């Protein structure tokens, strides 16, 4: 910020008592726009890192950055998509550098993840001792994680987070056509993985 900026001078002078009006307005707007997506961001971070404390760090960092650059957020566009993009960039910078070989699925890690996280709060309403249910989840989760990352990512953003193709294209920095074909190919791969699962649990019988 420019040193001679008059708002900054005011802010410095009155810092102890109150913030400038613009700053207050920014806070309010930020709370209305951004904080509403906290659960979705945490959920996404958790699926990316598979570690609750890493996920929290990632979300913290994302909100800090988002607040700092909130002025550059284009009003009227999807704030959730904007936050996801910041989170994803943070994730790449912080965690992906020292990650394991791409394409390798660590089933033990997934299992551990599911077992540590099973008892925490989730949006899915099910009885706490429903072990059978959590096993089902685990199977689907493993199938999803067996996909190459570029496919898994678009499926997560589309099916779990409900973003439009345009928003996804912007987030993964690829054309919409690429998003379309990744979803198509990713679902085909996933379908093959889940074939036995779908048969076993009746997803193939409920024809409409």
């Amino acid at each position, binding site marked *: 910020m420019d040193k001679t900026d008059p708002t900054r001078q005011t802010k410095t002078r009155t810092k102890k008592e109150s913030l400038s009006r613009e700053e207050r307005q920014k806070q309010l707007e930020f709370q209305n726009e951004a904080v509403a997506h906290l659960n979705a961001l945490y959920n996404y971070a958790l699926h990316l890192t598979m570690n609750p404390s890493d996920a929290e760090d990632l979300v913290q960092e994302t909100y800090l950055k988002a607040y700092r650059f909130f002025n550059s957020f284009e009003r009227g566009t999807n704030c959730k998509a904007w936050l996801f993009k910041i989170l994803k960039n943070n994730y790449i910078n912080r965690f992906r550098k020292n990650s394991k070989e791409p394409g390798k699925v660590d089933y033990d890690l997934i299992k551990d993840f599911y077992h540590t996280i099973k008892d925490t709060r989730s949006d899915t309403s099910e009885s706490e001792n429903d072990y059978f249910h959590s096993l*089902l989840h685990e199977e689907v989760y493993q199938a999803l994680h067996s996909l190459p990352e570029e496919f898994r990512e678009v499926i997560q953003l589309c099916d779990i987070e409900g973003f439009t193709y345009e928003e996804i294209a912007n987030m993964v920095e690829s054309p919409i056509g690429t998003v379309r074909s990744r979803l198509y190919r990713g679902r085909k791969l996933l379908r093959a993985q889940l074939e036995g*699962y779908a048969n076993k649990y009746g997803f193939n019988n409920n024809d409409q």
Partner: protein
Amino acid sequence: MNCKKAGMLISASVDGELSPSEEQEFLLHLVECKECRIEFDDAKKTKMIIQEKIIQFKAPDALIVSIMQLSGFNTKEHEETLLYE
């Protein structure tokens, strides 16, 4: 429309991302092509399984509190970080 083109539209149709004219053309193809119809149903089921079976986790209370503080400047630390960094 041939199967190759229809194949590329399957996911977009499942997600409601086709334009009305594309959608109409695609559905016309489905009526006459059993294979594509099966693929379309499979894609729909796959999406449904993911939506139903992947657990959505909620943020822990402590995280919610700290984010609220962050944007409400309730702590001196955050004020410094955000304003002058």
